[in-house]
């Protein structure tokens, strides 16, 4: 029961709830109190004393940010005493602050300067005591000038409580006190990830982005969704002269909300009593004021000089590209695609949709493929990363992706992170996990052959051999059943096929699992007991499970484990399946899939087809001719296979780079080059675009309107911040023009397309958030970062969260078998012992995302890690005669790439790690094409390699 408390504020009676602070109530009541150390996502701290107010009854001056309201309080926020004291505090700060305001790039964003101006303070009028502690950093991202530090500790608190990296803390005391790294080394020598969160909270110029050029005040700010991984963080872009000069986490002040308890949702304070609904009203955005290095600096790539400006066409056959008008280019594309269809029918053309494009663009593109080209050969890049969880969770739980959101993940009491390194691939997820551990005492079960950065937070770290996760997960389930720890009520009421499942676990005894995975039986039992004992047990999984040939089976095993422990639905934990790209989920939801129309309506379902045929105004002839194709098309890698065989004549590739990101690089390149016609639509002249006959310049993620669906399944707005360069156009516009050129116009306005998606895609209906403005009002007043199902998402939970019942009434245990486990079939996943063979693990690095097509073009992201690297265990280095910094050739049976060797204590002997995101040394080139039979996802995680030193 929340108690209402009434106080008198500046002579007016206002009411709040017990536990609320004077500052919160004042802000809710429209009374502004200046602060320097307060932040909506940080616990109140009371360091700066700027927010002091006068208690008129006692005459005391109180720091309002840490003073709870009490019945009958009489508060004055601007009495002469308050103003006098506040001014003195600011003057004291200014007395030790350098006079560099004119050249300080913080400029008008400096909160200290704003407050001084509001208080009418010119000169400090005190003896100046300068702090000479000026530290210059040599990293490309940020500059620390501690002479401007006012010791508000916001950076330290952001570091500890928001992103939970723990890189800095106060050092020394008195006049010497300052935020410092361990042993006071420069940031680039510390564990700092340069996420930029501390910069965004610093109220003065002490922490700033490193900008050689003074950019001054920006004219406009646009709130949008970050395009550099699947998290979907809400960021604010600051724009000047049609250029993005800065990207910061969205930090808008949250509108007041009834029923808001002050501390809930803020770092370190109290569990949410009433579940998610009330827990996270302050700041509903995914990232809650945080950001990562890609979000902060990745925008530079989109503004890089390499952007395509005009369409490029090869006039005849193999001649060089020439710039062309849109008319000429689209004519060439129409001719090329029509020619292929004429020669080989609709089966001989294929389309690749993009995990980087918006939902609307993918929707239009798949309509184009199905209605104009008449083909179901359409897929998207998520086939290479998250198809395993999409298919695996879809078959078992009926939800093609994550079953929950990060807010719920954060309130879980046990979190199992398996086959995922979110610290690098999805930083906002890692932040949430670490906050859960640090602030709520959640237990982290880490399952990874590599020692990732989550290791210090782990309750238990299981180190299975690469690719043996299926045995491990099934082994945990077997222990749970053997010890009677399963959730019987859930299993009985909500699932079927339990008996088969139980029987299928027989071969996964702790001893068998130990033999297969190398994980000690006792650890397995401990992990199983911990997970089964959780009130809310959540699972975070990523490419470390999906990118094996048994990835889908492992995803199903995880779904089985979640069902067994009752961790599906509102009262349990969630499965959070990471997405490599910003819209991998959306591209699949929108039907950029060979077997599904939008909303996972099967192409073989006549009812579903006729629904879309009607919506798209297709003329159905007699015998059903002219309708949507009813055959299941080819997946991404199958398209390449058919191109190799000459059965595929033409491809239309939108925003994907198969020549770089697909396994078997040379074979893929050859297959693409052998096509009669290849058209690539992208923002850069990518490796794939270089092979094309026509290249169409597309608008980047900050240059168009639409929505992205993040890894939680949240649909979020993307807003136009700057104009696209040259003649480039949004992908949707290009596809619609092309459709018109090919004689079957597709015409949508942005509003029409969104409405149609809401009407036809059951996952995207949006009945109760109509007050949210439609795009067009860029940077408008509405609360950004809200999913279009806003309230449903936060209160009733989304479609993914099973409101009481599963979509098909029951969920089905899917037994997975030992033969799915490479443990019984060592194959490519084991180092081959003799012959110097090493097991290579490939994964995402922090400073690049995806295959690096975009992020490798960011000046600063490139500066910190200019070239690809390969991490080795010390003993392997010694054995191979390689030292740290040497260039080595990494050779597999499928190819070779060069990389610089690095020593890493995170790997076991015999295992090496290489990031996938360096276009110059694509780790994917080392892999052959070997598909998971269920999801058709190629194995891209582990392969056997040997190393040759080629220089230092």
């Amino acid at each position, binding site marked *: 029961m929340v108690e209402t408390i009434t106080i008198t504020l500046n002579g007016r009676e206002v009411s709040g709830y017990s536990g609320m602070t004077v500052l919160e109530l004042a802000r809710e009541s429209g009374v502004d109190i200046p602060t320097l150390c307060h932040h909506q996502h940080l616990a109140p701290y009371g360091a700066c004393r700027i927010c002091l107010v006068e208690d008129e009854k006692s005459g005391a001056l109180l720091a309002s940010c840490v003073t709870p309201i009490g019945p009958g309080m009489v508060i004055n926020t601007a009495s002469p005493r308050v103003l006098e004291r506040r001014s003195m505090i600011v003057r004291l700060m200014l007395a030790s602050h350098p006079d560099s305001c004119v050249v300080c790039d913080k400029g008008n964003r400096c909160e200290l300067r704003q407050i001084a101006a509001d208080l009418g303070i010119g000169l400090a009028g005190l003896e100046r005591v300068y702090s*000479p*502690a*000026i*530290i210059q950093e040599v990293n490309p991202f940020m500059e620390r000038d501690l002479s401007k530090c006012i010791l508000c500790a916001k950076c330290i608190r952001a570091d*500890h409580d928001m992103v939970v990296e*723990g*890189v*800095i*803390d*106060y*050092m*020394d*005391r008195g*006049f*010497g006190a*300052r935020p*410092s*790294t*361990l*042993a*006071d080394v420069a940031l680039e020598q510390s564990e700092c990830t340069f996420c930029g969160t501390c910069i965004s909270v610093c109220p003065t110029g002490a922490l700033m982005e490193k900008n050689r050029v003074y950019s001054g005040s920006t004219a406009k700010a646009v709130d949008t969704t970050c395009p550099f991984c699947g998290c979907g963080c809400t960021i604010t872009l600051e724009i000047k002269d049609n250029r993005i000069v800065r990207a910061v986490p969205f930090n808008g002040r949250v509108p007041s909300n009834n029923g808001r308890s002050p501390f809930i949702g803020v770092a370190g304070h109290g569990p949410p009593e009433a579940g998610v609904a009330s827990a996270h009203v302050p700041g509903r955005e995914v990232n809650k004021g945080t950001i990562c290095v890609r979000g902060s600096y990745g925008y530079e790539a989109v503004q890089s000089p390499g952007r395509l400006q005009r369409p490029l066409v090869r006039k005849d056959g193999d001649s060089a590209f020439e710039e062309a008008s849109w008319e000429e280019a689209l004519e060439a594309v129409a001719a090329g695609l029509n020619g292929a269809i004429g020669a080989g029918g609709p089966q001989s053309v294929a389309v690749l949709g993009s995990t980087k494009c918006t939902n609307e663009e993918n929707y239009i593109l798949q309509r184009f493929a199905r209605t104009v080209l008449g083909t179901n050969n359409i897929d998207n890049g998520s086939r290479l990363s998250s198809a395993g969880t999409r298919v695996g969770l879809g078959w078992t739980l009926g939800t093609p992706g994550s079953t929950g959101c990060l807010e719920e993940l954060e309130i879980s009491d046990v979190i199992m992170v398996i086959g995922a390194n979110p610290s690098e691939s999805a930083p906002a997820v890692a932040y949430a996990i670490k906050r859960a551990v*640090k602030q709520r005492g959640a237990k982290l079960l880490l399952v990874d052959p590599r020692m990732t950065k989550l290791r*210090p937070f782990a309750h238990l770290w299981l180190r299975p051999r690469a690719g043996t996760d299926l045995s491990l997960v099934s082994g945990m389930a077997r222990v749970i059943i053997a010890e009677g720890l399963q959730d019987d009520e859930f299993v009985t009421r909500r699932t079927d096929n339990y008996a088969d499942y139980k029987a299928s676990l027989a071969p996964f005894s702790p001893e068998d699992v130990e033999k297969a995975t190398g994980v000690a039986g006792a650890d397995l039992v401990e992990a199983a007991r911990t997970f089964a004992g959780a009130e809310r047990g959540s699972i975070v999984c990523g490419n470390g499970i999906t990118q094996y040939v048994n990835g889908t089976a492992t995803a199903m095993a995880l779904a089985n484990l979640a069902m067994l422990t009752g961790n599906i639905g509102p009262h349990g934990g969630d499965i959070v399946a990471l997405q490599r790209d910003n819209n991998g989920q959306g591209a699949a939801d929108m039907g950029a899939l060979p077997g599904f129309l939008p909303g996972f309506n099967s192409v073989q379902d006549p009812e579903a087809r006729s629904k879309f045929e009607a919506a798209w105004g297709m003329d159905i002839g007699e015998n059903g001719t002219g309708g949507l194709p009813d055959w299941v098309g080819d997946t991404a890698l199958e398209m390449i296979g058919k191109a190799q065989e000459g059965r595929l004549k033409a491809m239309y590739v939108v925003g994907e780079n198969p020549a770089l990101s697909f396994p078997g690089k040379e074979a893929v390149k050859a297959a693409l080059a052998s096509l009669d016609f290849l058209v690539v639509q992208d923002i850069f002249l990518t490796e794939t675009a270089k092979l094309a006959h026509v290249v169409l310049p597309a608008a980047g993620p900050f240059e168009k309107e639409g929505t992205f669906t993040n890894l939680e399944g949240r649909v979020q707005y993307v807003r136009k911040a700057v104009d696209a360069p040259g003649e480039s156009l949004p992908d949707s516009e290009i596809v619609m023009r092309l459709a018109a050129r090919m004689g079957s116009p597709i015409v949508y306005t942005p509003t029409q397309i969104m409405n149609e998606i809401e009407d036809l895609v059951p996952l995207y209906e949006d009945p109760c958030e109509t007050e949210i403005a439609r795009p067009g009002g860029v940077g408008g007043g509405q609360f950004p970062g809200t999913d279009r199902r806003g309230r449903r998402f936060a209160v009733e939970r989304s479609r993914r969260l099973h409101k009481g019942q599963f979509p098909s009434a029951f969920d089905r245990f899917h037994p997975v078998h030992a033969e799915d486990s490479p443990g019984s079939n060592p194959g490519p996943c084991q180092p081959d012992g003799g012959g110097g063979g090493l097991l290579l693990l490939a994964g995402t690095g922090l400073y690049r995302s995806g295959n690096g097509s975009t992020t490798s073009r960011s000046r600063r992201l490139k500066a910190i890690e200019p070239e690809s690297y390969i991490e080795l265990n010390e003993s392997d280095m010694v054995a191979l005669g390689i030292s740290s910094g040497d260039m080595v050739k990494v050779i597999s049976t499928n190819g070779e790439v060069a990389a610089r060797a690095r020593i890493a204590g995170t790997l076991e002997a015999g295992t090496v790690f290489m990031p996938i995101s360096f276009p110059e040394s694509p780790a994917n080139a080392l892999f052959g094409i070997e598909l998971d039979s269920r999801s058709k996802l190629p194995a891209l995680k582990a392969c056997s390699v040997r190393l040759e030193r080629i220089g230092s």
Partner: protein
Amino acid sequence: MSEPQFEQSNMQHRPACGASKPDLNRIRGIIAEHDGQKWPLIPVLQKIQDDIGFIPPESITILAEAFHMFPAEVQGVITFYEQLYMVPRGRKVVRVCRGTACHVRGGKSILKLVKQNLGLEEGQTTPDMEYTLETVACIGVCALAPNLVIGKETYGNMNPKKVSQLFVKQTGSGESGGQS
């Protein structure tokens, strides 16, 4: 540009370079002794310093892991307290009082003599790790001024003769004690 000021004023907090390898197992033992205790960090730090004479910088990561803290947090605690050191100190810490009472009775000269006797400046340690010289603002026995403290022992009414005897004697006992 000149070195930042704090580099000078807080030298004693800086990790020592080339210090002999600390006994990290002893540190782990001390942590184990305080297992289950609430807020163990400061008692553990004091115990480490009592045992080893200082807090080896290498112990920070071990302490952080044991107490589920960030290494930077542990460093923050160590550098906050005047009583905790991250550089090796002499077996005996000589603290010469420079409080008001001692000052008017010649404390300044006493400090000068101690410096000459030990060959040290403030904050320094003798190469044999026997003595570290510090000054204090007041030790609370002004009636005996000028004062100095060696280890836990206080010496009052100091004069030049007593100072030189003190260190001959102390040095002698240190050697005969056979401490290494």
